[in-house]
């Protein structure tokens, strides 16, 4: 087995140098890590599992990579090797991302982006890598299904002042403040997405489309008391029937408060904020607007 292991590692190295990632991964996954003949120490097993997972991920092959990351997750808890732990974390986040578990992936990306050390083992942790992890966290959060959990992660990211320097910040701001996103902004955001994030869903729309429509629908529910599906469809850029179907699902999943009058084809949004509290909010907005006008008049010397 010893000789086989050496040959496999050598071949894997060659495949890797030719960037044939999956072949290299297959070559390594042929090594029998659990054989009773030789006692392999846990760290060696862990490093192999993580290496194979990374190779599969180079080809965006989440299924095979996940098999090895699951094996690694039993070994990583008592691993002291920080480089390996970091690689494991990155693999795990990317697998969640590829499997469209966007919210969990976002939390792991964010955790990675907060690494304080700049030197782990012989690996240099540069700011770009951390910025990429942060940006990936924002992207995944935006793609996640709208709801209270996503809002919490959005708020955390929005408060993190590193995000204000990201190219993606304007979108993050609008999504966090529950403002409606226009088509040009969505298209610009789509440019940054990875292939799997643009993949088509069974109903022939992309993950991004769904996330954006749901987001805009939630934003509209903050703006309007009620709206006809005709108007809503126009606002969201989709047919009225589809708008009604998505709204119905979100109400059913308790991610939006409201009721649908199918005879009139109108949706009535509900806001569980008490009338008197809404009144206070309206007054705060009015005073703020008055204050802004006075400030800008003062600055113009009027």
């Amino acid at each position, binding site marked *: 087995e010893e000789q086989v292991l050496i040959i496999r590692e050598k071949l894997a190295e060659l495949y890797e140098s030719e960037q044939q990632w999956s072949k290299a991964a297959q070559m390594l996954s042929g090594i029998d890590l659990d054989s009773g003949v030789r006692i392999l120490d846990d760290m060696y097993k862990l490093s192999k599992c993580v290496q194979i997972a990374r190779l599969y991920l180079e080809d965006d092959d989440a299924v095979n990579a996940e098999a090895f990351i699951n094996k690694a997750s039993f070994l990583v808890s008592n691993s002291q090797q920080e480089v390996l732990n970091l690689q494991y974390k990155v693999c795990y986040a990317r697998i969640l991302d590829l499997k469209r578990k966007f919210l969990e992936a976002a939390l792991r990306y964010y955790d990675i982006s907060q690494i304080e050390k700049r030197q782990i083992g012989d690996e240099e942790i540069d700011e770009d890598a951390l910025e990429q992890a942060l940006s990936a966290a924002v992207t995944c959060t935006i793609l996640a299904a709208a709801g209270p959990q996503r809002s919490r992660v959005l708020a955390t990211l929005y408060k993190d002042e590193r995000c204000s320097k990201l190219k993606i910040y304007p979108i993050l701001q609008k999504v966090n403040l529950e403002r409606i996103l226009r088509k040009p902004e969505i298209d610009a955001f789509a440019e940054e997405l990875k292939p799997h994030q643009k993949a088509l869903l069974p109903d022939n729309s992309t993950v991004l489309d769904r996330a954006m429509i749901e987001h805009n629908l939630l934003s509209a529910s903050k703006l309007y008391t009620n709206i006809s599906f005709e108007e809503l469809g126009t606002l969201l850029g989709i047919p009225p029937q589809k708008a009604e179907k998505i709204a119905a699902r979100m109400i059913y999943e308790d991610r939006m408060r409201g009721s649908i009058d199918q005879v009139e084809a109108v949706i009535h949004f509900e806001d569980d904020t008490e009338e*008197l509290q809404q009144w206070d909010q*309206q007054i705060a907005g009015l005073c703020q607007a008055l204050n802004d006008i006075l400030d800008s008049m003062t600055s113009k010397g009027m």
Partner: protein
Amino acid sequence: SFLRQVSSLLRRLPAMESEKFQDDFLMEYNDTLLVAYLAM
């Protein structure tokens, strides 16, 4: 632009104008008077 801002500001008045608001407001008004009466 100031005039536009001012006119949009005025358009936001009255701040609240719903049946339910009136009910809630008067309800709270009466409750508070009742509390004052009770305390007296």
